[in-house]
């Protein structure tokens, strides 16, 4: 009997700084026939009808109208990570193609990074390290202090999977936890982490020592934090962003940090990424920026790959697709 052909899957590139990892490729190739964009463009006529899945790794390949039109048998687009704001969902669904992401694979490392940024900002880890290793340092100044995290108030905006994991971790630091969410979580969940629901985001902003943004990027959450919201925050407060750069009005943030409206910010995400090298945010002293590393661990990335593979195989076999993204 003829061996069934492995499902043809379009990827951007293998290896290099942007490509699918080589060790992931080895695993995927047991189950899929991987076709790179290069190969696809060279032999469009051969591959067009065969490709049933697009594997979007680190935002590539870009799934636009042209690509969708050239893949008549496409069943599913699988995306690495939780955020799908870079995908035109409406467009993809209009072609009858399903979409899946990997929210659970990224949730723990992203929550960990949120706490890491909060601690690093509060306790001046980056600046402290620079002082400790600087060739000019002769003595450590005893009057050089940070902010207390234990017992402080953390306001979580967006209490989904990741936000809740942040709350679980913060509770162990005896933090007082406030949260704002589209929907209130059930009592059991709230009580487990001692979180207090703030139906008005303003209340959360006024009371928090640390404000952490953990929302999806949607038209509703674009520029969720602007001049007004920054104005509600305490002048001693720190803003932490581990979701999407566009959730913050960056110009307003620059002004707020320059004028001491808030004390500091710690951002894993900006818009764009990376920021232009002359951007005002890069000139500020009271900011920490990391290169979007919320899910950057080998384990998380491996799990993402496995989730994506599962979704592809399910979609192709007409089974319910795990981690399916709906309209």
């Amino acid at each position: 009997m003829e061996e069934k052909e492995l499902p043809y899957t379009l990827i951007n590139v293998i290896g290099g700084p942007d490509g699918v990892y080589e060790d992931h490729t080895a695993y995927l190739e047991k189950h899929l026939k991987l076709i790179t964009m290069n190969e696809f463009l060279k032999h469009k006529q051969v591959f067009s009808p065969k490709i049933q899945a697009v594997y979007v790794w680190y935002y590539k390949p870009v799934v636009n109208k042209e690509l969708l039109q050239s893949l008549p048998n496409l069943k599913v687009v699988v995306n690495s990570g939780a955020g799908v704001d870079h995908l035109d969902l409406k467009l993809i669904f209009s072609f009858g193609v399903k979409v899946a992401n990997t929210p659970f694979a990224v949730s723990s490392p992203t929550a960990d990074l949120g706490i890491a940024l909060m601690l690093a900002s509060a306790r001046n880890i980056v600046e402290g390290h620079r002082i400790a290793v600087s060739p000019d340092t002769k003595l450590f100044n005893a009057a050089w202090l940070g902010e207390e995290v234990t017992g402080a108030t953390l306001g979580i905006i967006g209490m989904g999977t990741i936000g809740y994991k942040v709350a679980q971790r913060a509770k162990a630091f005896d933090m007082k936890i406030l949260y704002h969410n589209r929907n209130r979580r059930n009592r059991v969940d709230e009580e487990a982490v001692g979180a207090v629901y703030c139906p008005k985001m303003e209340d959360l902003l006024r009371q928090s020592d640390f404000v952490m943004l953990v929302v999806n990027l949607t038209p509703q959450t674009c520029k969720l934090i602007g001049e007004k919201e920054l104005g509600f925050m305490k002048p001693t407060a720190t803003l932490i962003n581990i979701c999407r750069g566009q959730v913050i009005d960056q110009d307003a943030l620059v002004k707020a940090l320059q004028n001491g409206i808030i004390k500091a910010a710690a951002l894993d995400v900006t818009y764009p990424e990376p920021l232009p090298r002359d951007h005002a945010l890069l000139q500020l002293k009271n900011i920490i920026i990391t290169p979007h590393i919320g899910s950057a661990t080998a384990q998380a990335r491996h799990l993402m790959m496995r989730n994506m593979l599962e979704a592809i195989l399910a979609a192709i076999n007409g089974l319910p697709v795990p981690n399916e993204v709906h309209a």
Partner: protein
Amino acid sequence: MFRAKTFYLAQSAELPAAWVTLANRSGCRWANSCIPFIQKSFRTGPKCRERTAPSPCRDKIMGEKEPPGALVYDIGGAFGVPESHVEFLKKHFDLITMKEFHKNKEQLCEKIRSIFVFELRPVVDCELLESLPRLKVVGNSGVGVDHLDLKLISSYGVKITNTPHAVSDSTADIGMALMLASARRLVEGCCIATSPDTTHFAADWLGVEVTGATLGIIGMGSIGYKVAKRAKAFDMNILYHNRNRRKEEEEAIGAIYCKNMQDLLQQSDFVMLVVNLTPETHKLIGKRELELMKPTATLINISRGAVVDQDALAKALQKSVIRAAALDVTDPEPLPRRA
């Protein structure tokens, strides 16, 4: 944190010192019977605070209107007692700086009943002890007292107090901060994100996972336990090695006791040092211990620099015997600027 430290220092330094002096002086039977009681409770600030003697009796015996003198290194600046603490301290003490003391030793030496050691200063040596005949107590900021010659100070009949509880939360927080920063390459990441040369972010730039990893805590005292509590929320598997087993705490947070430090070192992804510095813990982590650790492991030190054999650590990091280290403490501090 420093506010709490000052409060406990004031409490512990003031009352027992006053009691011991007055009891000796007035021969009050009640006060005399309190001495062994006070001596026992003298180790830590909060404990002293709980066992305050009734004030009417104390006022009767005291008859002293002047606040006791407390010697400090300096007020303000990089190494002095913070200016923001002075108002509070002045309610209880007459603060005398080392400068003032040196100018007027003869008069001031009679006033000084306590030394307030803030961030290792002033140094309490033989010369200073000899020049303070009415000294009753040395109050130290922080928990580590390895910089104090305890034997020498005690030989002058002077007591010593520290502030273990005031520092425990913030020190545990720093332990977690260092572990997370190291695992996720936060400092390096920040450099990349802000470097003028950065044009894009690589997708294959990775750190190591903290959630679900194994943390080995060496030294499970107040601070070590608080680290364990925090790490538990990250679903970490917690091993610990301690002079004494702590069964109750083990159950509370699901920590596993490792009688042999070797077992802890071999199994841990992160090893955190949270011991006191004593002759027994000096160079506790050396070449042998580092080689027992996983090559993917990270060493974190929030106790004292001298607990680690620094030369061995440098070699281990250069040869990738272990993955990384994160140190809040070194020996000396700061390190000399060249290797």
